[in-house]
């Protein structure tokens, strides 16, 4: 039998969802374990025995000096590093508070000091080179399963290249932007969630970040303006999960 690949899961600052989502793979997790041995995953195991990882999954934003040290350690000791989830790929919600760290800490903790060495929250991709970036708040668990299986079989995983809108069409969901006038970011958001919010009859909140390439945020902006949403509201919506440039 061939040696199993060593897999590390590293959590920086986040809600825990991207690590938890791995456990939500249920029996598929056991399928993955045919190919991988988990040597670091602190939410799931008390063992920590890795100093080399074939694949490292890094979730969360860099929000403290500890996060930065851990990220560098993961990068230096891994062959293939995946930035997993919108915190790691785009900064997600905690990076959208655009005040200097000193002011944020003052508002919350009430003094000027920074004893715990907090940093402005930034995505993993701003600090290190990553081999693959898989967004989503949280990411689609079947997508990470596919990516890890591809790597195990020596195939370079494929990035999706379509917006959420396409998944709405495939599911034959009614367009909430056109029919209900709801603020839906589906036309400019990177697909892969299977249009889960529109399934509930609600607008896409853009949690997977902008679709790279031909996306047209200016067009989306105009549509929302016509639906009489004000500028500040639209800009905030664009900037919640990723820092779009409209």
């Amino acid at each position, binding site marked *: 039998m061939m040696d199993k690949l060593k897999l590390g899961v590293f959590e920086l600052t986040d809600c825990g969802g991207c690590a938890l989502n791995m456990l939500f793979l249920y029996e598929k997790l056991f399928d993955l374990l045919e190919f991988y041995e988990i040597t670091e995953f*602190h939410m799931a195991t008390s063992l920590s025995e890795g100093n080399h990882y074939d694949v490292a999954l890094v979730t969360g934003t860099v929000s403290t000096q500890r996060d930065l040290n851990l990220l560098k350690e993961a990068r230096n000791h891994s062959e293939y590093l995946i930035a997993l989830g919108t915190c790691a790929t785009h900064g997600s919600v905690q990076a959208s508070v655009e005040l200097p760290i000193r002011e*944020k800490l003052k508002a919350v903790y009430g003094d000027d000091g920074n004893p715990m060495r907090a940093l402005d929250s930034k995505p993993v991709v701003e600090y290190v080179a990553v081999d693959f970036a898989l967004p989503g708040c949280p990411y689609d668990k079947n997508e990470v399963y596919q990516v890890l299986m591809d790597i195990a079989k020596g195939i370079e995983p494929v990035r999706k290249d379509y917006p959420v809108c396409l998944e709405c069409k495939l599911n034959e969901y009614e367009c909430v932007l056109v029919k209900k006038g709801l603020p839906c970011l589906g036309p400019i958001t990177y697909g892969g969630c299977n249009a889960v919010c529109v*399934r509930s009859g*609600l607008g896409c*909140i853009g949690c997977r970040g902008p679709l790279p390439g031909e996306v047209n945020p200016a067009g989306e902006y105009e549509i929302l303006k016509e639906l009489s949403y004000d500028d500040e509201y639209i800009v905030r919506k664009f900037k919640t999960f990723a820092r779009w440039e409209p």
Partner: protein
Amino acid sequence: MIIELREFTRVEGNGKAEIVIEDGEVKDVRLKIIEGPRFFELLTLGRHYYDVPDLEARICAICYLSHSVASVLGIERAFGVEVPEEIALIRELGLIGELLESHALHLYLLVAPDVFGYPDAIRMATKHGELVKEGLALKGFGNRIRVMVGGREIHGINVKPGGFGRYPTVEELERVETESEALLRLARRAVRLFTQLDPYGAQAKHFVATDGYLWGEKLVSDEEGEFHYTERIEERSLVYSFAKQSRYKGEAFFVGALPRLLLKSEMLTPRAKRLFEEHRGKLETGYVSYNNLAQAIELVYSLERANEIAKTLLDRGIEGENIPVEPREGEGIGYVEAPRGVLIHHYRIDGSGNIAYSNIITPTALNHAMMEASLLEEARKLYGEADERAMIGRLEETVRAFDPCISCSVHLVKL
């Protein structure tokens, strides 16, 4: 001398502890939340109320629905909106699903390895595969309810002020009815398993919960009637932790499954009530480790209650009508029992529906002082008696008993 424990494992988020030794004795323990701050109150400030529950859901993945519901309750109270029984029941069903998902995760995947002496559930599965599968079955059921009510397994957006984006279908409710019945046997087995745990940690002196079983208008404690958190609970910053610490009338207190059972046993479903009575003597000692047993009893409660709610909704039929919500200037507090204890969302909203003030206090923050007290108690008992590895292992179990959710604890703020 300071013994620094490594980062806690098999908990959600990043935290660790320090034990301060002076003259050969344990002098102090510091619980350090090293997860970075996430500034949720600042994030929601100035935002339109309609988008806020979806953002607040991101505070925690394990209990996102508790955050959405607490947020929605706070907003509705600020506007003076009351929802009909149908909407209230569906929300309760969602919270029940979350309780099942979260308790099963905690008991089977995080605590059970301690009971059987394994570093994790994956390695435990080689010998106790059935048990791991049972845990996953309960958890999977809880998650299916979360998808049905919340919109997806993690961070759904279906729970809205005034109702839902999408309502459960008859088929979905019928499935809840059958599956909850079928899974009861597993939950009762869990109760037998977790009665075996030793008492450890401190014995809590004060217990706090919401006045209803899974949410309420106010809080209650073991020694007095209803109160608002602002009247009794104080928060302060710590130099060694990103989480603040809360105290009830100046003292450490306990929120979670054990306080819920002790304060609200009369609200339990029949089988859960019988199990509570059977283990009452043990539970009333107040040892924090019995929180695990209390969670197992709550698995039984959740399945019985899910069954009741599904039946009620099927009998009366689903109308699927949202209540219109008109923003107006106001203030409201949402109190919810997250799986690990009381969760508070407090908002002031301006006339155009934007958030003007926001304060969130999570169960892990409320329990922070109690966790330190428990670590201190346990460290004093074990220091010099047990070897350091065994002591550290037990200290980790002590923290784990609270089912701490560290990510959520790092953004409590008074503005």
